[in-house]
């Protein structure tokens, strides 16, 4: 039956029917609303933030290690450069002494070379030879009057005997010159006397290669 009168259902213990508190008076459950749930901070974002932070720290650590490593590398390379510069200086000093005129002249004399004649013949542009051509006499000019105290007692090139070909010998002698750093200034490379047969020259003609 319906009436337009409001009426309350009978209450038991002052509570409406179906109330969970009526069934289990000790159990309390707090449920968040949807808005509250949406407003809750997400775990993923937190993990990303922390992870990123850790990543940054890790990257900084690795970069710092690499930087310090580089600094040590620089230091060792600078030291190497200084040492090599010293070796270069020492070698060029030896080269300077070996290239001195006194050394060259005395070595040339030891090899049996003589000084050229005083007069010389000139081939002019007009094909005429002017001047007097004279064969060199067997007399060598006395060398050794002009002192070079850096050369004292250095072995002369003519003492060494070499039988290798020229190109490979050059490679060997440069290597040898780097390794042997002796106190007295010595002529560094041993004499190169090629033992291959030399092509006999035809008188009056320039030697020319045989081509096919």
């Amino acid at each position: 039956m319906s009436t337009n009168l409001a009426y309350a259902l009978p209450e038991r213990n002052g509570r409406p029917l179906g109330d969970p508190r009526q069934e289990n008076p000790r159990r309390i459950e707090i449920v968040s609303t949807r808005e509250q749930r949406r407003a809750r901070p997400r775990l993923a974002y937190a993990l990303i933030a922390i992870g990123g932070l850790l990543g940054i720290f890790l990257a900084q650590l690795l970069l710092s290690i690499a930087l310090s490593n580089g600094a040590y590398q620089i230091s060792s390379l600078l030291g190497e450069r200084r040492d090599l510069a010293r070796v270069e200086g020492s070698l060029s000093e030896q080269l300077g002494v070996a290239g001195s005129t006194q050394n060259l002249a005395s070595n040339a004399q030891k090899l049996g070379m003589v000084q050229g004649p005083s007069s010389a013949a000139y081939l002019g542009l007009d094909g005429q030879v002017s001047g007097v051509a004279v064969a060199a006499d067997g007399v060598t000019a006395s060398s050794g009057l002009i002192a070079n105290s850096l050369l004292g007692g250095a072995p002369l090139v003519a003492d060494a005997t070499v039988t290798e070909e020229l190109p490979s010998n050059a490679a060997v002698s440069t290597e040898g010159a780097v390794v042997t750093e002796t106190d007295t200034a010595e002529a560094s490379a041993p004499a190169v006397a090629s033992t291959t047969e030399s092509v006999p020259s035809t008188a009056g003609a320039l030697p020319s290669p045989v081509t096919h």
Partner: protein
Amino acid sequence: MNTSSSRSTRARLALTIIAVFAVVAVFAIRLIDIQVVRAGELSSAAVSNRSIPLTTYGTRGEIVDTNGVVLADSVDRFDITVSPRDVADFDRTTDDGKVTITVADALAEIGEITGQSVDELTTPIEADPDANFGYLTKGVKLDVFLAVKNLNIPWVFDDLRASRTYPNGAIAGNLVGFIGTDGPQAGIELKEDECLASTNGTSTYERGADGVRIPGSTVTATEPKDGGTITLTIDRDLQWFVQEALEKQAVAVGAEWATAVVVRISDGHLMTVADWPTVDPNDVNSADVSALGSRAFSTPYEPGSTFKPMTVASLLDAGTIAPTTKITVPGLYTVDGGSISDSWAHDDLRFTTAGVIMNSSNVGISILSETLSAQARHDYMVKFGIGERTAVGFSGESAGSFKDAADWDAITDKTVMFGQGVSATSVQVASLFQTLGNGGVKLPLTLVEGCTNADGTVTETPSAEGTQVVSESAADDTVRMMETVVTDGWLSNVLTIPGYRVAAKTGTAEVPENGVYTGERIVSVAGIAPADDPQYAVVVTIGKPDTIKTSGAAAPTFQEIMTQVLKKYRVVPSNTPAPSIPLTW
């Protein structure tokens, strides 16, 4: 409702808060003190602990010849030093394990490498056992230094010492000079020290405890500046040849000293300035003190007859004589206070100007010089550079001595015309012949081509401005007359160079001592070749020879040197014969 319990809770809470704030305040004050108040001094103290300025060294510049050959070189040498207070036995790790090396063993090892005895090495250690520093060896080369370093002796250290070496020894030793303990002592090393000297720099950066630079720290540095390279006009190979030839002859005739100068006529460059005796800059102590400089620059002497061409050229330029002027030359020429004679006794001879030059007649020159006033002749000689230093300005260069015309007495008035009563250096004589060969245009003598600084700029290049001293025709006529000395003179077969026309003048000068002329002679030969197109002038002077007291002593050396010069520089031989000039009438 305020109960007593809540009041005490609030009281404790307030107390805690006050305590916390007090502690925080202490920290805050401390923080402000360190970070703000004392920030400056603390951070600078920290930086100064980590960054120490290091000296970076510049190297002294080289001296090179005209072809770039190094005459003076800067090299590294090392001092082996010791810390006496740390000297003790030490352990060395070898392949056989740890070995104890005693001090004596270590010193023996060092001595083996440096060539010193153990006693020599213990002297610095025992001299001051508490010292921090002592020298074991000074100035060793790189190989010795590395060998000692490899021994890894903990109380042995090293120091870098910048040194100088002269790879070509005594070649140009008179010119290059040398360095002593106080710095450069002589020669170009001294004169051009401003160009050659280097300046050290500093380098400051933060470094860790093991000396490695802390990355990211700022480096403040003043760059070291290397010295510049001095390029000389000297040719090393020619200088060697000339020095050898000069020494050979000087020793053969028993001379006291000798000089030889080679000038390139076209630009006044000195190709060679040779002295004997001379010095090897690597071994200065073995040279005589008088040989340490360059006599060619520093020691004037009365040149003698090599001045006659200058007199003749001046008179030709003034127009008072001609190459064919005829004069009668008596055996004796008298003036107030004395008389002048020739080197050979003769009756009246009929010479032309050319004949006077060829025979080197003192009387003839005196007669010819009567045609021009003393002041005019004096001024010509000044224009030729007599009595004035050359443009080289070498260390210790002398200007010679040359009196003013007003101070000439009757004898001096004539004797300066043939090079007595006036003194000049070898380079001044060379400059005179350069002028005659260059058509009368005197170019400043040059020894230093330039200073090439470390940054590549070239400074100190010499000026090339010439002065016309005599006319071209006067100079050329004089050269032609000098040719007769070579073709017709008494030294003809010694002075002739096949294929070339050579003009030369001999000189045999008397040497005054205490105002009196002695029996000593200074002989010279000065010449120009080729005479048809002069390229080079050579002056050879031999001082006080014993065995040959005429210019015959210098003549062979002149010929040898001039031949080498002509050959070396590929000078085109003369293809026209010398024109004949009347010598007598």
